[in-house]
């Protein structure tokens, strides 16, 4: 593999004077007209859309990447404050339903250039080889139309570009990381101590936070506000890892542009561009190819809202696959109380993880597994934990005053894909007059068993570390699926190259194409899948 700077110069295109945004690069970026038939228009500048944009801009393609949200400037737009970070989240109206409705917004939905990676914790584990064939191995979930070796080189490439810091990784396909593991704070220390005593292997990482200088990105300052957007440029998001290089190679990023519909020519059956609204004005960007990367709620919604005479039930929805098999991970968090001060807010929340329970254990009644990671909630989020125990009034305040004594772990449980966990269109409309997404979710029995098992392991670790009390809050994390890849159009929306079965020049390059999710945070895999799709596209005619 060539040196990372030769492949992706983003980190060297950022300023090195203590500010975080290369304003000149943005001001001077190439701009296209709506009437230009560009090579590719990308919908959404998150993990998948940004990588695709950068890769193809480097190939000389004319690419415009639209994003519904702003083109962030970390200096001006982001704060070291929980409450004021709501603008980082997708907060347009949505309806949640099912037996186990999944709250959206802050927890799992991004907005603006960089997408959800602006406010993700920073964990970037790979999927395990087993994740690509859960049906064959375990009789649950689905097999991917590609396998781990197909993604391996892309994982390694993206790990260098972010870059990822961590210990040598013993799980899945064992591998090493380009940056050394970060020193740990109180929470990581507790996890490592407890795990060792409980006989569980835990490792520092893998986190996409630079350890040392990387290009013009400075070292992490361990301020703990990773989930509020990194003002330091230390934590990776596409805003700083792929977009600068894309601009330097002639791509245009067009922020504040909400795509409302994909246009498909009835005669040729090909996509011709996208309708979008910018500054209240409806526009149409022509393009030879369209890639949708709006994530697991907005991507299916856009397809469903792009119904036409040819596609009466929604674009690419001939076989009722759009919006289905949407997954969240069960993400219970268990906290332990220590007489010593942990002050878990001092360090990035992502520090230490264990994948020891990731794979199916034949001695257990459930299939698949879970991972465990440090999480370190800040006060507002911590108050949710305390309120979830039923406390309110003076009791809640007293309990909260104990904040510095708590350590907190989180699990990611591999919930299985189910057809009825899906996005449909609700009756209500957003301010553009478009039906909003309705996301329905119900846990299965295997899912519930995983939640319990993960909680028990976290309690064991915290007790082993010396906790005198443990509390747990049940919650969910991440979104993937909703327009999954499959071997054929009866089982999914796109093929292994992310090309839709129904429209040959329409691609989906975001988390919605994932058929399973493992117990891994999805960002790295979304980027790797998009990088692979870009590689395949390079060889094709534009």
């Amino acid at each position: 593999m060539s040196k990372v700077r030769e492949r992706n110069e983003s980190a060297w295109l950022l300023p090195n004077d203590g500010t975080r945004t290369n304003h000149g690069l943005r001001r001077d970026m190439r701009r296209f007209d709506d009437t230009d038939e560009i090579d590719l228009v990308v919908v959404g500048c998150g993990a998948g859309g940004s990588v695709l944009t950068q890769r193809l801009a480097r190939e000389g393609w004319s690419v415009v990447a639209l994003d519904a949200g702003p083109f962030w400037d970390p200096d001006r737009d982001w704060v070291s404050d929980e409450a004021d970070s709501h603008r980082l989240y997708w907060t347009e109206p949505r309806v949640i339903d099912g037996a186990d409705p999944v709250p959206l917004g802050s927890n799992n939905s991004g907005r603006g250039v960089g997408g959800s990676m602006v406010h993700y914790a920073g964990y970037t584990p790979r999927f395990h080889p087993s994740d690509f064939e859960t049906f064959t191995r375990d009789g649950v979930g689905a097999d991917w139309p590609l396998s781990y070796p197909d993604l391996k080189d892309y994982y390694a490439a993206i790990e260098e570009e972010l870059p990822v810091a961590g210990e040598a990784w013993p799980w899945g396909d064992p591998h090493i990381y380009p940056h050394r593991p970060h020193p740990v704070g109180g929470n990581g220390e507790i996890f490592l101590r407890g795990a060792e005593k409980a006989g569980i292997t835990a490792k520092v990482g893998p986190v996409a936070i630079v350890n040392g200088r990387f290009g013009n990105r400075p070292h992490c300052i361990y301020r703990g506000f990773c989930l509020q957007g990194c003002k330091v440029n230390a934590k990776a998001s596409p805003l700083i890892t792929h977009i600068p290089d894309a601009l330097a190679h002639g791509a245009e990023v067009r922020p504040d542009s909400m795509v409302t519909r994909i246009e498909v020519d009835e005669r040729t059956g090909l996509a011709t561009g996208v309708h979008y609204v910018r500054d209240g004005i409806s526009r149409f960007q022509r393009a030879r190819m369209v890639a949708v990367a709006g994530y697991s709620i907005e991507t299916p919604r856009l397809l469903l809202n792009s119904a036409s005479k040819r596609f009466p039930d929604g674009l690419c929805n001939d076989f009722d696959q759009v919006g289905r098999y949407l997954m969240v991970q069960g993400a219970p968090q268990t906290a332990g109380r220590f007489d010593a001060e942990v002050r878990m807010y001092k360090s990035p929340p992502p520090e230490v993880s264990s994948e020891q329970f990731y794979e199916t254990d034949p001695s257990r009644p459930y299939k698949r597994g879970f991972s465990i990671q440090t999480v370190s909630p800040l006060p507002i989020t911590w108050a949710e934990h305390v309120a979830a125990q039923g406390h309110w009034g003076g009791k809640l305040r007293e309990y909260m005053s104990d904040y510095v004594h708590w350590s907190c772990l989180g699990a990611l449980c591999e919930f299985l894909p189910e057809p009825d966990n899906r996005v449909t269109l609700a009756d209500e409309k957003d301010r553009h007059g478009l039906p909003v997404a309705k996301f329905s979710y119900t846990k299965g029995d295997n899912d519930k068993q995983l939640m319990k098992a993960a909680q028990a392991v976290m309690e064991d670790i915290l007790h082993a570390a010396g906790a005198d009390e443990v509390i747990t809050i049940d919650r969910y994390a991440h979104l993937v699926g909703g327009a999954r890849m499959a071997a054929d159009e009866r089982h999914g929306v796109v093929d292994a190259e992310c090309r839709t079965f129904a429209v040959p020049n329409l691609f989906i390059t975001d988390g919605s194409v994932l058929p399973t999710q493992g117990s891994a945070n999805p960002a790295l895999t979304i980027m790797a899948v998009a990088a692979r799709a870009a590689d395949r596209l390079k060889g094709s005619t534009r």
Partner: protein
Amino acid sequence: MSADRFPGFDVLSQRKHWDPVTAGVVLERISNVRDFRFFTPDEQAIATVLCDRLLGQDGDDRIPVAAMIDARLAEEQTDGWRYADMPEDGQAWRDTLAALREDGFADATEKEQDAQIQAVQDADDKWHGLPAARVWSLWTRYACTAFYAHPDAWTEIGFSGPAYPRGYKNAGVDRREPFEVRDHQPGEDPVR
């Protein structure tokens, strides 16, 4: 509340170390609580009592939780999503405050008010036609988000607040920055 656990600690004393954008939003939060715009005066009266009870506020220096919620709803800074069996958040607040009014919440004694609040938390199913658990979640989510956004609450729990551009140098169990204050009642686990 228990006595001061972090004597001498005042997160605002560190404000000179905050970046200007963060200092701007946090200081505006404490110095410039706006007039009520979303709640009607009737709703305001009930919301103020409800939020103060939910957070055990009965002294003089109260964090203006209801006003902070009002600002959030007026500016539509909600999370966007709503449960299928609930109205959107602003309407849900109006509906639940109207329900409390119907129950005579405003004129009840503190003890009665606490009992009425407890009844919502304890309800198995519906409360005034709405799923009680969702009502409870709405109230506590908004009230806690407002309260723990306030520097006085950070001081109360020993949290060091905004940390850019300074960051931290002394992370780890029982390690503190020079400006952080040790908990003076470390064994006082409130539920032990």
